[in-house]
């Protein structure tokens, strides 16, 4: 059910050391990705508490994506290993509660992968656009 002109709001948590630099690279290379992707820089992908993800949905996000260094390349050695387990558990739980599983994603993007960053964001935005607005984890009081 795609509404004409509907653009999903995407929140992307990007780790400072890899994915945020990957986003910079995408920008430097003038690779286009949707302007509705709001990047939030975090020191490490494991800084993202499950509450952040829920909060983003509450405040109107239609999709939430976490980007971090590839497993094994974490600036802090092991942060993204924890992210991997936590988000697997959280996403599985969201799915169990009936929330569309395509609205959440984790992707590993290194500082050298500007093209991957742009491609990931384009793809994710398209996927979320097909789902339409986030209704199942919305908070009416936060609607604009």
């Amino acid at each position, binding site marked *: 059910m795609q509404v004409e002109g509907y653009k999903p709001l995407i929140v992307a948590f990007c780790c400072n050391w890899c994915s945020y630099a990957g986003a910079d690279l995408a920008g430097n290379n003038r690779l286009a990705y949707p302007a509705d992707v709001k990047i939030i820089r975090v020191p490490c992908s494991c800084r993202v508490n499950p509450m952040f993800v*829920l909060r983003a949905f509450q405040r109107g996000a239609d999709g939430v994506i976490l980007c971090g260094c590839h497993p094994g390349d974490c600036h802090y050695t092991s942060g993204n290993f924890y992210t991997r387990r936590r988000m697997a558990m959280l996403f599985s739980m969201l*799915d169990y509660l009936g929330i569309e599983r395509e609205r959440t994603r*984790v992707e590993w993007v290194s500082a050298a992968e500007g093209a991957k960053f742009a491609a990931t964001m384009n793809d994710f935005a398209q996927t979320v656009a097909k789902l339409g607005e986030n209704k199942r984890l919305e908070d009416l*009081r936060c609607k604009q």
Partner: protein
Amino acid sequence: MQTVTRDALIDRAVSLLSDGTVDTVLGWRKGLFDYDVTPSTFKTVEDLRENLQWDDHCGANFSKYLIAQTKKTESKVLVFLKPCDTYSFNQLLTEHRFDREKAYAIGIPCDGMVDAEGNMLERCVNCKSKKHVAYDELIGEDGEVLESGRFDEVKWLESLTADERFKFWQDQLSKCIRCNACRDVCPACTCEKCVFDNPKSGIENKAPASSFEEQNFHIIRAFHVAGRCTDCGECSRVCPQHIPLHLLNRKHISDINKFYGEYQAGAEVGQRAPLVNHADGDVEPYEIFDGGDVNA
């Protein structure tokens, strides 16, 4: 009916209290009605003889009470533990929540507990273990870890469509009055300051004002005990709204078993919980759903 008698418990507690081994006994206190049992401390022999209750209404798990009680005494605290309670006891020791030296644990067999209406508790119908994993002494016979159908309902829910699951949980979670009983009773919820008490968070103790708040509370509560929840069943037992909270916790437990290998929290002291651990080649969050990569 419980195989071990009330008198057996009282006799043992009285002798340990009288010879000074312990100065406090944690036990179930009689109320006005049979089902009206309160977890309580007993300090005197008379009080014990008169007011200790032991029957099918003694579902309360005392492990968590040890945190506060062991801090209040220089001596030891006697605690009665049913088999499922011993898992919480071990989990709390793993997390260094109380001093083992200050607890005197008596394991007692359990034949299943009932709720106020006399129906057997869900956790007892699907009892996972009659074996005590921790005790200083045992009264009666020890049992075995059981094969139970405790994940059957989780599997049933997983087999529904996302819409059906959403409806199911909306119906359940919208009953929540945020009394916080589930959190307060949980032996895994032992933070001194809980996220749900933070007045700046916008989600502090209050009745949910929107469906988001209900979901948020339950997702986060379940997540915070993921990997540490022993499936003691206390949360579902105390919920005044009869919300099947065990279905949330067991989802995490069954996911952990599936993704990271069989794990029973509290089975041994010193285990490393799955969410504070990692391994090479762990499943990726986009590989978790049957049918493989949902993002493909």
